[in-house]
C-alpha cells in the first residue's frame, strides 16, 4: 500500500490541479482528490490471492517430477535403440561368430548378469513404491 505523505500528496495534487485547469474550487477538489488518492493507494481486498505461493511451488514440483520421469524414460528408450542397433550391425556386418562369442561371454557370466538385472529391477520397484520421507525442519 502506498502511504502518501503530505509532501507527496501536495505535489501530486498540485500537478493534477494544474493539468486539470479547474483549480478555481481548490478546497473542494482537494478534498475529493485526497479521498481518491487514499482509495487508490489502499490494498484492494478482492485482488488478494491466498495460497498462491503453495500452489506455485506444488505446480513446479509436479512439473519437475514429470521432467525427471521423462528423462529417465528417454534414457531407457535410447539404451534399447542402441542395443537393437548393435545387435543388427553385429549380425549383418561383423559376423555371426562374433555374435556367438558375445553370447558365450554372457553365458559364462550369466549369474553376474542375472544379478545386475535383478538389482536394477528391485531398485526401480523400490523407487516407485517406497514413500520418500523428509525430515521436518525450518526451510
Amino acid at each position, binding site marked *: 500500500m502506498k502511504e502518501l505523505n503530505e509532501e507527496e500528496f501536495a505535489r501530486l495534487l498540485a500537478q493534477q490541479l494544474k493539468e486539470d485547469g479547474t483549480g478555481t474550487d481548490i478546497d473542494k477538489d482537494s478534498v475529493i482528490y485526497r479521498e481518491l488518492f487514499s482509495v487508490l493507494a489502499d490494498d484492494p481486498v478482492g485482488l488478494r*490471492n491466498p495460497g498462491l505461493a503453495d500452489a506455485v511451488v506444488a505446480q*513446479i514440483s509436479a512439473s519437475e517430477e514429470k521432467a525427471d520421469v521423462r528423462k529417465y524414460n528417454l534414457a531407457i528408450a535410447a539404451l534399447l535403440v542402441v542395443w537393437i542397433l548393435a545387435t543388427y550391425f553385429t549380425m549383418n556386418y561383423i559376423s555371426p561368430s562374433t555374435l556367438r562369442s558375445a553370447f558365450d561371454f554372457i553365458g559364462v557370466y550369466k549369474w553376474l548378469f542375472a544379478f545386475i538385472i535383478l538389482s536394477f529391477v528391485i531398485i526401480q520397484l523400490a523407487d516407485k513404491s517406497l514413500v520418500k520421507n523428509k525430515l521436518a525442519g525450518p526451510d
Partner: protein
Amino acid sequence: MQNEEEIIFRIVNGDLAAFKILVTQYEKLVSHMVGRLVQNREDAQDVSQEVFIKVYRHLHTFRFQSKLSTWIAQIAYVSAINHLKKNSRKNSLTDDITDFEHCYKTMENPETILLKKSHSEFINQQIALLPVQFRTVLTLFHLNEFSYLEIEEITGMPEGTIKSYLFRARKLLKEKLELYIKYQR
C-alpha cells in the same frame, strides 16, 4: 532476513523453499497487477501462477540491471496482456480511449451509484470499468509505488503517455467520486 541476491542464487540452484520466500514477497505485486488487468478472478489466479512459473524458469537470465520487482512486474504485465489478447473478443485492447471517456461519464446513473457501500468499493468498481492502459498505470503508480521511469520500463509506454493516462484516469475517477459524494448527501 536474507538478501535478494542470495535468494536468487538459491532458487537458480533449484531451492524451492527459497522460491517460496520470493513468491510470498512478490505475490501482492503480481496479484494487484494481474487482478486489475485480468478481471475474471479464476483467470487472474491462473495467470498469477503462470507469472511465477515463468519467473522460476527464467530467473537465471536476470542480470540485476533493474530492480527484481520491476522485472517481475514486467513479466506480470506481459502475461496479463497476452491473456487479454487471447480473450480479445471480450476485452478489446484497442478501444478508442477518447470515445471511452465520453461514454464513461454517462455509464452509471445516480440510483445505481447510491447502492455502492463505501468510497473504496465504489472507486474499485469504477477502476474496473476503465480501459486496460488506465488500469495499468493507476495500479503500478498508486498501488505498487513504481516511478514513471519504472512504469516505462515495465510497460514500454513513453513517460508522457503514462502521465497523460494517469491524469485522465484520475480525472475520470474524481468526477465519478464527486458525483457519488453529491448523491450521498
